[in-house]
């Protein structure tokens, strides 16, 4: 297992390096100039041109690409992500400041997704042709298809403007306080609805398949309680594909939810990254993508390890 982990970590490192390189090259080959955003539209003749040259020299944009890349990697090796061109703030500090918000929202919406999706899927599988099955699967489809900006704004209209129960935007206090929780509630539900739909449909089909297996029939024949069969025998086996998808969904959530973060003014890394991209703020985009790539790689590793726990037949060597 240790050798397997070491190999996986090495591959992960390669993946992250590849992503970083790709982003570095892509950013620089897309048309547009990062210093454009810093030159006032009315900068008079020589002043604007001189400022542009000064800024290009300051950030090294006037040097050959391979030199820029080498410098970037050497700084990266020292865990130096550079500082934003626009705000001059350290990218590492900015990311550290925003990541907790992204994590909070990701965990919150994952909780919503699991709490809504998995039970709905199980119940629908147990009663295949019932009204509940049809209703929950229709809702799941709706959850999958509704655009988040629409659901977000609808929730906001209802719960903030009409009922006045929840704050419409921003990050509250710590999540265990009412202030923190009330701020988190709407964005987490909005963001959790789509994965809940995915999970519900996936759980239902996985469960339905498992329930047709011979060992379930045997368990029933032994006279085991229906609850025991469902939870101990069927669910555990049905969860394997669910966990895989859950891992991927969580990785996605960790990369920041741009729309939800924008609608609810949630200060996560999704918005930070978008501002970086639209402003051609290279260090911000590079730093943000690096963190996201690491999160993805880590989650995938965790999911693979979790398999062993769920299915003893799987063993890594």
């Amino acid at each position: 297992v240790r050798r397997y982990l070491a190999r996986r970590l090495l591959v992960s490192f390669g993946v992250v390096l590849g992503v970083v390189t790709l982003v570095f090259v892509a950013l620089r080959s897309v048309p547009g100039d990062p210093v454009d955003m810093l030159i006032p539209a009315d900068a008079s003749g020589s002043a604007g041109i001189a400022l542009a040259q000064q800024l290009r020299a300051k950030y090294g944009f006037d040097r050959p690409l391979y030199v820029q890349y080498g410098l970037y990697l050497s700084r990266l090796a020292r865990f130096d992500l550079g500082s934003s061109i626009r705000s001059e703030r350290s990218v590492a500090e900015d990311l550290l400041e925003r990541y907790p918000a992204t994590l909070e929202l990701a965990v919150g919406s994952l909780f919503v997704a699991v709490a809504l999706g998995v039970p709905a899927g199980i119940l629908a599988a147990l009663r295949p042709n019932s009204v509940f099955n049809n209703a929950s699967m229709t809702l799941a489809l709706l959850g999958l298809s509704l655009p988040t900006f629409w659901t977000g704004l609808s929730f906001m209209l209802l719960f903030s403007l009409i009922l006045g129960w929840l704050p419409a935007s921003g990050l509250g206090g710590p999540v265990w306080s009412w202030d923190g929780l009330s701020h988190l509630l709407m964005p987490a539900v909005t963001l959790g609805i789509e994965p809940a739909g995915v999970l519900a449909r996936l759980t239902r089909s996985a469960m339905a398949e498992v329930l047709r297996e011979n060992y379930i029939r045997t368990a029933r024949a032994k006279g085991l309680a229906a609850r025991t069969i469902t939870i101990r025998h069927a669910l555990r086996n049905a969860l394997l594909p669910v966990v895989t998808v859950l891992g991927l969904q969580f990785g996605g959530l960790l990369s920041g939810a741009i729309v939800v973060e924008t609608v609810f003014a949630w200060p996560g890394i999704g918005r930070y990254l978008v501002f970086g991209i639209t402003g051609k703020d290279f260090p911000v985009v590079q730093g943000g993508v690096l963190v996201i790539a690491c999160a993805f790689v880590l989650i995938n590793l965790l999911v693979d390890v979790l398999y062993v726990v769920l299915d003893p037949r799987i063993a890594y060597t």
Partner: protein
Amino acid sequence: MTRTTRWARVVSVLGIAALVSALPIVNLGPAAGETAPQRGGTLTLSIKYSPTSIDPQKNKTITDEQVGALMAEPLVDWVNGSFVGVLAKSWDVSADGKTYTFSLRPGVKFQDGAPLTAAAVKASFERMTDPAAPMPRGGNLANVASVTAVDELTVRVSLKTPDPDFLGKLLQIDVLDPASWKGLTPDKAPSGTGPFQLVSYVPDQRVEFKKFPGYWGGEPYLDQIVIQVVPDPATQEIELESGKIDFMDYVPAKDVSRLQHEGLQKMSFGRVNWGRLVFNLKTVTDLQVRQAVCYAFDRNAVLQDAMYGLGTPQLTLAVPGTWAYSSKITPYRYDPARAEQILDQAGWTAPRPGAMRQKDGKPLVLNLPTSSNGDWEIITQMIQQMLRNVGIDSRITTMEPNTFYDAVRTGKYDIAWFETNASPVPPIAAQNLDTHQYWDVMQQDLPQVDALVEQASATVDQHARAELYLQVQTIHHDQALECTGAWMEQVFAVSSKVHGMVLDPLGVTIFSARWWKSQ
């Protein structure tokens, strides 16, 4: 990034005076009652973009400016059509327009307790233009030859060339205490003279201020000001309507009348944002094609249908009713028949009715890029249809904003809808015709225009200056260098409980000491 931010960083160039000015709040909601100002309370402002820096001298955007204006002040500002002294009590301009002498207001204290002195003004100017680390707005002071502290409260600024508009360039130059900016961390602000002091700054989230009791203009009415960053306008509107915030910036044009019906105050500033059709003179070389485009362009349709009537048509470079305006220029007005006639005469003909025009087998097709933000895309589509109506074909490419600006700046286009901000002086949008600037979009040197613009901007005598600008406008018109479009109005929405807010021509809310909120 939307139009507002990109252009928001702008400052003083194109001029637009009398019609601009700080427009007072138009209260269209329920009567707020003309009671005496009340003290206390917290005002919550909502802005779309986080300030890029909390240091008032590092301002890049109008949002930076707006946040900075609470803490720090310039020597002069522009209100209701004229310059007013802020930290300068009065000023004197030498006859040759090269020396500006400012008398500072006595008894003014920085928030750290230090007195406002001529030396602080000098140091502030020098920090803005430090060659080792110039500030984005340092270019406003590029013409300054020297700054002298004549005595404790008198500053003399000598310019390299005469500049009758120099005061307009000072609107974004805040004076700070030189002792306060050394060794600052990015979340701390240096000390200014403004009515509010920074309490905390969390990028992308919020900025909090408390009142500065020692403010020279009297203790501010409000106790606190909180600024929240809310990027989505729909969310801002919900929060404004539910009373959680008192102010939102840049209301989308389509929502303005609805918010007014809800009883919110509309605060607007106009004729600083200026939209026009620009040409790449290197590729659209045929004058008659450019003229035809200007006749085919229906600016009123754009104004009514894409901008919901928020703005006024712009017919010439100069603002009507100002000294720079001349009735000798006959503007291009929408006349598609005339456009077709010009094209026919120039040999651009349609092979059959309804087909696009061509000349010597070469089709008339223009590359028309646009920025991927809502308004620009719609306006560009309207332009495409207008051109098609007279037989000019065009290809729209929608680009991400930064890519679009760069495409236009580096000449990868034929024709484009382009918007720019302006300063109140001079009242003519001529400065952008200077072809030796970073943001030159015309792609071709126009030595005669450059010389005239340069000469005009350094001419003190208003009569002679108007004459020079008339020459610029004549070339601009005869050569159809651009098609003038519209002065656009930007709208902020304010709760009916808020009183005393004033907008300067750049869209910065100023004089916060006199803002108050009815309880």
